[in-house]
């Protein structure tokens, strides 16, 4: 464990020096994410011009939901996003060979090597913003629930990352340049909508098999509603399912991996 922490500290150092190589791009990226957050808020504000409730949530709940998912997005962008970019390229180009021969987990290398220093600024900003929304929330929120809510957000970001990896791991078999990344990006919109709008099989689908609604919607429900135990069980169950699938797929993928320029 200490070895991996030391290794991660090295990754961080390299990432910061790499980020400073392109100083202008560093700020472009900060601005890019800020623009994305701005659009998310405007999107829901435009919808609330025409309705008072969406998926059972009023505008205050919706603002909390948006602040939650932009925080999750910022967390993902900071810790995982660059790795998802390189993941299929490394497998296709055969860079995985290098990691397979290292005395450390090859998955650890591929999944955590890149840290986006520029997104760290956005992570801090979204953190402050989420804090502001929580502080100004019109109904009282239990401090204990807020304490549990924070790890649920980190789980949401990790779950998002792991779900993305499932879509990317298809490159082990198809050798295509980006796997099914485009399908994931389209599906990701489900995470940006409250789970209350879905019903029937589709709702079950997004709460279990493709748990986009578990990432941000359920943590907000946990915080603002009363059936906390069942929501927690649901979040843990869906997360464990996805983590197991990633683990199995990774092992199967490695068996299928045909080395350089596959």
């Amino acid at each position, binding site marked *: 464990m200490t070895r991996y922490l030391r290794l991660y500290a090295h990754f961080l150092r390299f990432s910061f020096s790499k980020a400073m190589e392109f100083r202008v791009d560093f700020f472009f990226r900060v601005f890019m994410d800020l623009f994305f957050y701005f659009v998310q808020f405007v*999107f829901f504000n*435009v*919808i609330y011009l*025409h309705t008072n409730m969406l998926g059972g949530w009023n505008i205050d709940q919706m603002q909390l939901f948006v602040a939650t998912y932009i925080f999750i997005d910022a967390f993902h962008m900071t810790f995982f996003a660059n790795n998802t970019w390189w993941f299929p390229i490394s497998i296709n180009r055969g860079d995985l060979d290098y990691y397979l021969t290292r005395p450390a987990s090859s998955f650890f290398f591929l999944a955590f090597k890149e840290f986006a220093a520029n997104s760290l600024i956005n992570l801090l900003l979204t953190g402050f913003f989420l804090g502001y929304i929580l502080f100004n929330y019109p109904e009282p929120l239990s401090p204990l629930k807020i304490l549990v809510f924070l790890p649920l957000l980190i789980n949401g970001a990790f779950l998002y990352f792991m779900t993305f990896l499932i879509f990317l791991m298809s490159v082990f078999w*198809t050798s295509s*340049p980006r796997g*099914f990344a485009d399908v994931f*990006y*389209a599906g990701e919109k489900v995470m940006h909508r409250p789970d209350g709008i879905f019903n029937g099989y*589709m709702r079950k689908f997004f709460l279990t098999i493709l748990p986009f609604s578990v990432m941000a919607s359920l943590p907000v429900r946990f915080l603002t509603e009363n059936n906390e135990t069942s929501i927690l069980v649901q979040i843990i169950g869906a997360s464990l399912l996805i983590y197991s699938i990633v683990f199995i797929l990774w092992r199967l993928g490695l068996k299928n991996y045909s080395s350089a320029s596959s």
Partner: protein
Amino acid sequence: MEILLSRSKGRVIKMTKVYRQVFFMELRNLLTYRADFWINFFGQTFFSLVVAYYLWLSVFEYTGSQSMQGYTLQGIIFYYLMAPLISRIQQGQGIGFAAREIYDGQLNKYLLYPLNYFGYKFAAYFAYSSFYIGQLFLILFLYNLFFYDPSVYQFSLAGIFLFLIAMTLACVLFFFLFSLTEFLAFWFDNTWSLGVILRFGTSFFGGGLIPLKFFPDWALEILEFTPFPYLIDFPLKALNLDLTVMEFSKSFSISLVWTLFFVFASLKLWNKGQYKYTGVGI
């Protein structure tokens, strides 16, 4: 004079042949991973529709309205079926088509070959756009086959014709607008994030995320004079014949002015940028 004319005619024919080759080469590139390509395409369409359907169903059910801002629920689903397809047509090849080559020095080859850089790049871009137009017509055909509802969409040759005019102009406009962010790579090396901002902005302010009719009036009045509505909203309205002749002419004219502006700005930036280019790469 005759010799000069025949020489320039010969050159045009030669160039047309080259750009045709580029066009078909890019089409082949696009379809290299066919299974992947179609899975991505149907996956994207499926998710776009599912998200739009449940979101607007929820809004319509809560408000109890039959129609909002002129859209019925079916009408808005049709909108969300077409908008991402139009967005894909207009966005063509993708981010980095020039910036990457400027950064890693591959631009050298275009400067050495007896080719017009813009001609080459536009032929490549147009290959993608043409293919996505084919996809749009395929989806339109399937929609009419299985969900035909004349109150939502009625096939008409005039609509297709106007759509093709508006779409072609949108493609040229976006290509040159996008080139600006790409050519900034002459100064800043990495401009990927600017491309993402532009794409995202185009999608939102162009009506890709939410129909523009849902925006407040003051916002619509401002947007009308920006290039964004002419990239998604205008072609979609043309397809649906949702414009009078006057409205079409007005949108077409504003769009054309923006196109000319971005052509000019893009050429200027390209000429200036070449002086900054070292041709070394990473």
